[in-house]
Structures are given as C-alpha cells and as structure tokens.
C-alpha cells in the first residue's frame, strides 16, 4: 500500500466536501480553531478555497502567552489566506476553574483547555451561523490522541481520513509556510509538549503501521512480518482499542422497539 496522495485531486475532493456538506445544512460559513500547527493551517486553506476567505473565521485561542510562536504562526496563515481571525485568551476561564479545583495533572489541564476552546467554537458557531470544521487527522482519530468533546468536537471533518503523513504532503502541495510545516507537531497541552515524544514514536512510524492495519486490513502478525518491530505494532493496536469510545456516539440502553442509533437510522444529509 502506498501513502502518497495526489494533491490536486485531494484538494478537489475536500473542498467540495466542505462546500456541499455545509450547503446541505443551509450554511455558507465555517469557523475553526487555528493553533498555528499543521492540521488547522491546512484545514483553513481548504476552507478558504471552498467557501471564500471572507466566509471563514479562524479562532486563535492561546492559554496566556505560553504559545507565542504558535499565535504568530496562526496569524500569519490567517493573513496569508485572507480569512478573518480573532484571538481569545482562554487563561482567565481555565484558571478560574483550577483555582477552585486545583490539580497538578498536565493532562487534566490540557483537556480542560481543549474543552474551553470547543465551548468557544460552539458559541461562535451559533453567533456567526457558521459550522465548525474539525481538524483531527486520521492518525489522531485512530490512536485516540485527542480530547473527547474537546478538539475532536466539530460539525464536519475534512481531514479525518488523511494520515498525518498525508496532511504533511498536502501542506507542501498547498504551499503552507515551511515554518509551520517543519514545526514538531504538538497538541498544545503544555508548553514544549510534542506529540511524537509523548507517544514515543514518530508519525512516520505510526502511519506506516496504521496504513497496513487499517487500510490494508492486515493482522498484527502480518504487519510484524513486514519487518516492523512487534512492540510498535502492539502498542499502536492497544492505543486503537483503548480509544474506541472516542470514535463512537454514547451507548444507549435499548428498551423500546425503535432506538436512536440502532434502528432509527436516518441519513445525516436528508434534504427533505
């Protein structure tokens, strides 16, 4: 299997996806969180192409001034593609909560920040009559490397079937500035955090395994037989299993003859 993508064709599919799926819900505008990282930058460019830059609002939501460079990068990409941007510091809201319920856990703090951003995005979504574009890529979704109801929350996600490696390739095709493309990917949970050091594998290593496991439908043994270290394959499989709940709607206890999600099954896109 091959990881390479045709940039022009992929952009064509994803911009149509954004325009058509928003349009069917009666929307012309989109809002998204701009972190200054690779995924949200690519998503912003796709949205600007699909809807026109004036119809896209990028919200830059740093926690205080701990992410100065990211804020600058986010503004740069916003200016470059001509979308509206707005910067909202989430520090006062987040600090207020942790003053009352203190913790030393960086993960708890990071999750709270992700959900604060989500809460602002949904508020702006309603105020602006704009739908939220998700920026989670396929690697994150499969590993569960995201905050449920935080950065994973959105109306539609144009990037969710592209591995991180493919998002990088798309970013090159879209001429995203090298400063953004070469920056180590970070969930921004705390200053200096990087995904690859936290997970303990590079995205290239992860994506190679995911491509065979998921798209190739190979067993772990078959992937190992390709010469990939067993520990890596097992670790990735375990992460996929442990995060299944993040990829599903909440379970409903079935009592009635017809139940939402089980046998009450209407298309998302019904037009009448």
């Amino acid at each position: 299997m091959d990881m390479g993508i045709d940039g022009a064709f992929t952009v064509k599919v994803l911009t149509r996806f954004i325009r058509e799926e928003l349009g069917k819900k009666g929307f012309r505008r989109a809002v998204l969180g701009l972190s200054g990282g690779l995924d949200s930058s690519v998503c912003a460019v796709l949205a600007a192409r699909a809807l026109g830059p004036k119809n896209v609002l990028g919200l830059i939501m740093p926690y205080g001034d701990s992410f100065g460079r990211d804020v600058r990068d986010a503004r740069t990409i916003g200016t470059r593609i001509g979308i509206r941007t707005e910067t909202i510091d989430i520090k006062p809201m987040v600090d207020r909560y942790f003053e009352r319920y203190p913790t030393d856990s960086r993960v708890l703090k990071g999750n709270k920040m992700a959900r604060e951003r989500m809460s602002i995005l949904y508020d702006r979504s309603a105020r602006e009559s704009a739908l939220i574009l998700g920026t989670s890529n396929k690697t994150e979704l499969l590993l569960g490397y995201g905050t449920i109801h935080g950065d994973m929350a959105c109306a539609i996600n144009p990037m969710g079937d592209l591995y991180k490696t493919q998002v990088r390739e798309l970013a090159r095709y879209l001429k995203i500035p090298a400063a953004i493309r070469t920056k180590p990917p970070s969930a921004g949970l705390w200053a200096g955090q990087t995904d690859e050091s936290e997970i303990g594998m590079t995205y290239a290593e992860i994506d190679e395994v995911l491509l065979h496991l998921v798209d190739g439908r190979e067993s772990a043994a078959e992937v190992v037989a390709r010469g990939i270290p067993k520990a890596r394959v097992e670790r990735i499989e375990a992460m996929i299993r442990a995060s299944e709940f993040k990829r599903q709607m909440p379970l409903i206890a079935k009592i009635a003859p017809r139940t939402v999600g089980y046998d009450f099954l209407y298309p998302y896109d019904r037009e009448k």
Partner: protein
Amino acid sequence: MCYFGPMKIALAQMAPGLGDVARNLDLHLETIARARKAGAELTIFPELSLTGYRLRDLTESVAADPARDKAVRALVRASRETAVVFGFVEEKPAEKGLFYNSAAFAAGGRILHIHRKVFLPTFGMFEEARFFAPGRNIRAFDTPWGRMGLLICRDFLHFNTSYLLYADGAETTIVISAAPGRGSAGTKGFASSRMWELMGEAMGRFAQAYVVYVNRVGFEDGIVFAGGSFVKDPMGEPVGQASALDPDFLVLDIDLGRVRTARKNWPFKRDDKPEVTLEALKKIVHGYGD
C-alpha cells in the same frame, strides 16, 4: 428486433438530492429537455436518481409503485420524446413492504423493462440489504434500438450478470451506478474508478456489446460519488468519459453496427454454448459430480 444504425445517447451524470423526489424530478425533466435539444434518443440517469442513494430509514417514504407514482409517471410521459433510464425505489401493491432498488427503461410513453438490483452490497460502508429486497431476475429486453440489458452498480461487478445479458442477446448493457470513490493513496483519482473502467473494457470486449456506465456525483453523509461515467464499444474501446467528481452531461454517438462487426470478426457469440454453461452450473449448484 434488429437495429444496425447509429444512435445518440445522453449520459446524465448528476447529484440527486437525498430524499427530495420533487426536486430530483425537476432535475430529470430539465436534463431530458436538454438531451432532446441535443438530439439524444436515450437519456440515462444514475442509480436511485429519483431519490438519492443513502436513504436508510427514508427508503419507505420515497417508495413508488411505477404504475401509479406521480414522479415515475412524469418520466414515463417524458419518454415519448426521448427514451429514459432512471433509478427509483420500487414497491408494488402485490409485494407490500418490500422495497427494491430498481431501474426503469421507458420509451414511447411506456415502461419497457424494470430491473431490480440483484446484488445488494452489504459490507464495510454498504448496507443495502438492510433496507432493500434483492431482485431475482436478469433479462435482456427489446427496445427500438435493439436488445439491451439493465444492471445496477454492484450487479455489474459480478461478471455472470454480463454473461446472462450476453446469452439473452443484449447488444447494449446499461449500468446505472452510485459508486463511491475510495482509495486515493498512490493513485491518480480514486483507485475504485479504475475497477469500473476495467470491467467496462472487458465486458465490452468479450460480450461484444456496448457498455454504458452512468455514475453519480456529489456527497451523501461524507461519502463522495466518483462520477467518471463512460461508454465502451464492442471492442472495449472508449467512446467517451465524463469528468470525475463534477456533474457532467455527455451526448455520445454509438453505432450498433459495430456489434455486428465485432461478433463477425471474433465469433465468440457464434461459438458460445449456453447449454454447456447451464448443465455445468446445475452440477455445481446441485453439488453432484460427473
């Protein structure tokens, strides 16, 4: 019925609205008018063109008895001026509560043939057998332009369907489709599009018939339909191809005389032995040996 001449056909690669029959009917009638102006004698729409594809629990609400349904009747009326192939959800009064993924061929103000999709993909992203009953017959039928056969999407990927139409005398196989694009890594366009073209070439070449494949475009629930509608001639050569992803409208000239040429030059049809196939199949199906 014997027809050796040229024919103009229109491939209506469109994006029906999901569950919006009224709007889809308008879209059909506008397209038929456009085809008529272009001199087309037959206009072909994709699978479930009247209703949209991913209906799920909407299926019953758009089901139509072709003898009575207003939208179907409107298309049959429109076929007085140019013949039409369209897709719809069929429910007959004699089979209440059974819904078929059907294709109708209408010409001269009446329905000449209805094909009910036999092979309902139900795996991975597909769940058709959850909502549709399977058709149980594959037959060719006579038209003013020779004998033709109708297949719906997945039907065509089972090559026995093409053989049955061939054995039954079809000179043109019309495949209406709602095929999603998938697998883009390492390829130009979608990997799945190549699968359809390959089958089209092979069946055109070896069934020595025209293959007309009309796929839809647009998105439903995040799934993109790949378009790329095409016509292959009885030598498997391309006659024309629509764009990927975008709505398109192609008017193509086909020459049914080429069926004769192909079958004369390569006498596969002359030498075919359907009775041997039948007897061999009986042994296979009934499990008895030689």
